[in-house]
């Protein structure tokens, strides 16, 4: 049975509804808990196995070893190279890597903030001094 204007119902209902568009950035919905946002690394539990580095498809993680015996590592993380796949978090046996569900607005105007160092403060200073 052919009708003329089969979308009439939708169209008339929309006249009385608020547009469904989210007025970002004035309205910002909370992201779900599983969102794969920016990476965070906890140096306390790391053993330096570097599985995160081996399987990263984008070479976004570099694990710099200062001293393997005393477990001093620094992670250099490239926000602009990361594809946010989550393989590193999956690989890490000690759950050192966590993907934030709040930090997902990562655009920037220059490249410097895209290289992030994670680790204990003194270790990071040591790496930067090199």
């Amino acid at each position: 049975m052919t009708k003329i204007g089969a979308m009439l119902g939708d169209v008339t209902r929309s006249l009385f509804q608020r547009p469904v568009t989210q007025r970002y950035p004035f309205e910002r919905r909370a992201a779900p808990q599983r969102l794969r946002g920016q990476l965070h690394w906890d140096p306390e539990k790391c053993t330096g196995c570097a599985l995160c580095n081996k399987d990263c498809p984008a070479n976004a993680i570099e694990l710099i070893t200062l001293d393997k015996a005393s477990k001093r590592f620094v992670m250099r993380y490239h926000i602009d190279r990361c594809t946010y796949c989550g393989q590193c978090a999956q690989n890490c046996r000690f759950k050192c890597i966590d993907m934030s569900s709040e930090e997902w607005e990562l655009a920037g105007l220059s490249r410097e903030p895209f290289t992030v160092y994670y680790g204990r403060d003194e270790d990071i200073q040591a790496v930067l001094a090199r």
Partner: protein
Amino acid sequence: MDITRSLIALLFFPGGLFLLLLGLAYEWVHRKLIAQLQNRIGPRWFQPLADMLKLLSKEEIVPEGIHPLLFTSLPVVALAGALTAALYVPLVGLAPAYSFPGDLIVTVYLLSLLTLCLGLAGSNPLSRFSLVGATRTLTQLFSYEAPFLFALLGPAIVARSWQISEIMAYTQAQGQQSLLGWLVFTQPVGFLVALVGLMGKLELPPFDAPEAETEIVAGVLTEYSGRGLALFRLAKNVELVIGLTLIAAFYLGGFNSAPGATGGLQVLLFFAKTLLLLFLLAGLQALFARLRIDQTVGLWWRFGALLMLLQWFILIVWRGMVA
């Protein structure tokens, strides 16, 4: 004094600059209505103005192998035709600036000048899309023009005049007697054909085959950029306003305007009635998919022309019985 007043009417208000800005405002309302019907936000109020200013400030690229004078002058002629047609219609509820017997025909043909200019502009055989667009524009012109003209002549028959101001005086008188005296109730078929014919003239969906974005990029306007494109689009906006004014004046009981009278009521009625028509236009546009050019022609020559002939038959019989 008279020359000054005429010049002001021609260049600033209610023609000329005011009409251009009114056209932009109506374009915004139109886009906003469509957006609301599609459950989205739509552009902000200054978007059409920003578009025009941006286009006017960009370089106009004349394609190779085309007559440059023709290319650059056709948009100007189209806009000039549209602005001239505004002289004979009751814009903003005020009496038309000029009026003479038979000006209805002149107005309708001045409105068609835009379509003819588009057809001519697209006849450059180097660009495939322009050529197909021009063919479709002219084919569509031949299909909706006759029913649209007939629909506007329906009120002319009952008013026994071909002069827009006299027709409007008649429809106003009818309207003032009772609301049901509006021609939209006594000639509903004519109203429908006039409204849909206006959609055809303005190449609004579902009759936008000449500008089918997904088939021929932008039809005739593909090769236009900068000033030429701005002028064509301004001409279309002006035609939208003039078309709505004509249909509101004929079928929705006019604007209570008398020669020399100015008043807030007329302006109010003008905006109320033309915006109501714009709302109907937007609704029809949102509901339908684009028709192929052969389907457009088929639709108009089968339904449009037949409906109009029926309407005319009724009118002539009624007039024969009454007179």
